[in-house]
């Protein structure tokens, strides 16, 4: 069965028909996506299925990854945090190294990029590639997956000249955008319901995973899946758990962190998390490899409640994943989580560990509500946040750029 046929079973034939209609004017066009990692993080997860799906629609699609050393990724992690508002001064030497690594990558990638009809550059890591391909022919789009609404100004001042020359940029929410001299499109990210991380799992496999980590399947479970990053507030989650256990002493907590290739800060935060957990046997801190997708899937499906108590968040795909699995979500009142978690419908937005603890208690006391929220959450994702909608919007943008932009385009 083709990927499109598999998707049709989930989203319906009309959605697939629409993709095929939009793909017609793009057939045979060459498209290259460039990011900084093949494994780990939301961008890589999206591209893993988006690229073959575009290929099946007869777009000549390629995915290239820039390579770099530890100082380069230290710099880009700093940029990532700085774009999200953290004051992260980056030394001149580090910034020069960032440019040098991009120059080295351009030598390798240039032949793939200059003739492409469309080039999608994801996030700041490969942003200088455009200026390093002066003979480029196609449409270049910068895709920002980060909340760049209040960046640390010195870092944004450094990055801005690399980004301004793009023909268009894409942000996940209007509020995330920065003033730029080109159109800024708003496209939410998505999840892939057919991936190992989201596909239906047999109950036996879920119980097996719980057994592997000594988690009791008969006691309530709260799960947060995210990198060990301060913006994800794993320490706040533990505090919320501790407050909730006064009323639900049988509660268990899983903090499952995947460490992405470009995330050297994680180890420091992990130490803080372990200190806060203080050897509580019902707090399970799991450092999972980037390919542990079925394990993450099983943990989310085993959860009664999924948390994403971020204090700053890009879009929050772990929220989307949990909702797709029919789970109520308690999420931080920030970024893209606001777009997904609707109070009293799909979960609750919270601002403090106290708020999170209160909502854990509310939900554990009302199993009917948990089921109702979970059902609504799944349908909400089906309509709005699956890969097919994401691809439709990318292709709509490509068709528009192919025809010179404009406010309205009627294809014949």
């Amino acid at each position, binding site marked *: 069965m083709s990927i499109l046929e598999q998707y049709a079973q989930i989203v319906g034939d*009309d*959605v697939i*028909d*629409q993709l095929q*209609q*939009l793909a*017609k004017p793009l057939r045979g066009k060459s498209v290259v996506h460039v990011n900084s990692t093949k494994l780990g993080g939301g961008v890589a997860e999206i591209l893993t299925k988006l690229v073959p799906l575009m290929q099946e629609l007869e777009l000549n699609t390629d995915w290239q990854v820039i390579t770099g050393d530890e100082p380069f990724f230290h710099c880009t992690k700093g940029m990532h945090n700085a774009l999200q508002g953290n004051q992260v001064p980056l030394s001149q030497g580090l910034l020069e190294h960032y440019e040098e690594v991009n120059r080295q990558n351009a030598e390798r990638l240039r032949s793939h990029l200059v003739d492409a009809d469309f080039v999608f550059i994801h996030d700041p890591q490969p942003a200088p590639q455009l200026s390093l391909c002066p003979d480029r022919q196609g449409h270049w789009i910068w895709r920002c997956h980060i909340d760049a609404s209040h960046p640390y100004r010195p870092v944004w001042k450094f990055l801005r000249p690399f980004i301004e020359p793009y023909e268009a940029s894409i*942000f996940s929410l*209007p*509020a995330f*955008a920065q*003033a730029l001299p080109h*159109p*800024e*499109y*708003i*496209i939410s990210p998505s999840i892939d319901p057919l991936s190992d991380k989201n596909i239906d799992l047999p109950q036996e496999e879920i119980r097996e995973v719980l057994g592997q980590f000594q988690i009791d399947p008969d006691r309530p479970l709260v799960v947060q899946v995210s990198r060990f990053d301060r913006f994800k507030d794993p320490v706040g989650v533990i505090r919320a758990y501790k407050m909730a256990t006064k009323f639900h002493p049988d509660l268990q907590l899983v903090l499952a962190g995947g460490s992405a290739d470009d995330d050297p800060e994680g180890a420091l935060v992990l130490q803080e998390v372990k200190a806060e957990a203080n050897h509580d046997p019902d707090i399970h801190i799991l450092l999972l490899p980037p390919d542990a997708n079925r394990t993450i899937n099983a943990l989310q499906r085993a959860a009664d409640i999924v948390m994403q108590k971020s204090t700053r968040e890009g879009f929050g795909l772990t929220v989307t994943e949990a909702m797709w699995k029919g789970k109520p979500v308690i999420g931080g009142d920030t970024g893209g989580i606001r777009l997904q978690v*609707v109070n009293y*419908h*799909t979960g609750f937005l919270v601002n403090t560990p106290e708020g999170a603890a209160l909502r854990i208690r509310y939900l554990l006391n009302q199993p009917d509500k948990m089921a109702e929220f979970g059902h*609504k959450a799944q*349908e*909400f994702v089906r*309509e*709005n946040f699956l890969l097919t909608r994401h691809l*439709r*919007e990318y*292709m*709509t*943008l490509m*068709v*528009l750029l192919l025809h010179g*932009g*404009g*406010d*309205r*385009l*009627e*294809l*014949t």
Partner: protein
Amino acid sequence: MANDDAPFCPPVAADAFAIKDCALLTIATGKKATTLKELQNHLSTIDPDSIYLHVWGSQLESQFEVREYNNHFASWARRGLHDDTLAERLAMVAPNEYADLEELRQEFLEVIAERLEEKEYLHWVLATEPFEFIRSTIVVFDTAKRVEQPEELIDLIPHLSTSSIFYHFIDARRRLPINQDDFRYWLTCWGDRYAELNHHLAAIDPYFNGLTTIRQQLANAFERYCPRKSP
């Protein structure tokens, strides 16, 4: 009401009804308002596409309950400014009653100006969340499906995508004479033959229901007032 089996020749030469579909993209404008005065200022100059999206955009959003306010301005008045009076007045601005987006813009501005005169503190009170002006661009594509007779729409409408419903039933109001949609516009080619169907289609409120509900209402109207031919 049409109930004979022979194909009816329309009095006006009617082209086949071309089923189209569309995809909308949202574009950030960089403009936002944190007070009602700022909203008024931006609204007076913002691109008409932005007004279009803020009035009709909620049709394309998922709904968990019956929509309380029908446009983003009214929702923001309620949730951002916490001014129920203004929210109610803005919600009652019905876009299908105005000839074009400029007239609609003036009506919104009128409502806001009136409220600013009533409550002076609204000039400076800060909203708890900003109003982000966005605009849209639309790509319309032809599905290659053609309908020769209105009766064929009975089976087709339930299977149209919601974005196709958006194009033919809502976006049409921007392309056609006042308060028209593609279905009614096409049916007029048959003179009075489908007058009853036309009347019931006109009664479907495009403003209060989501696209899935509108699709069902359209399907019901065609099923009831455009009977199938005998086999």
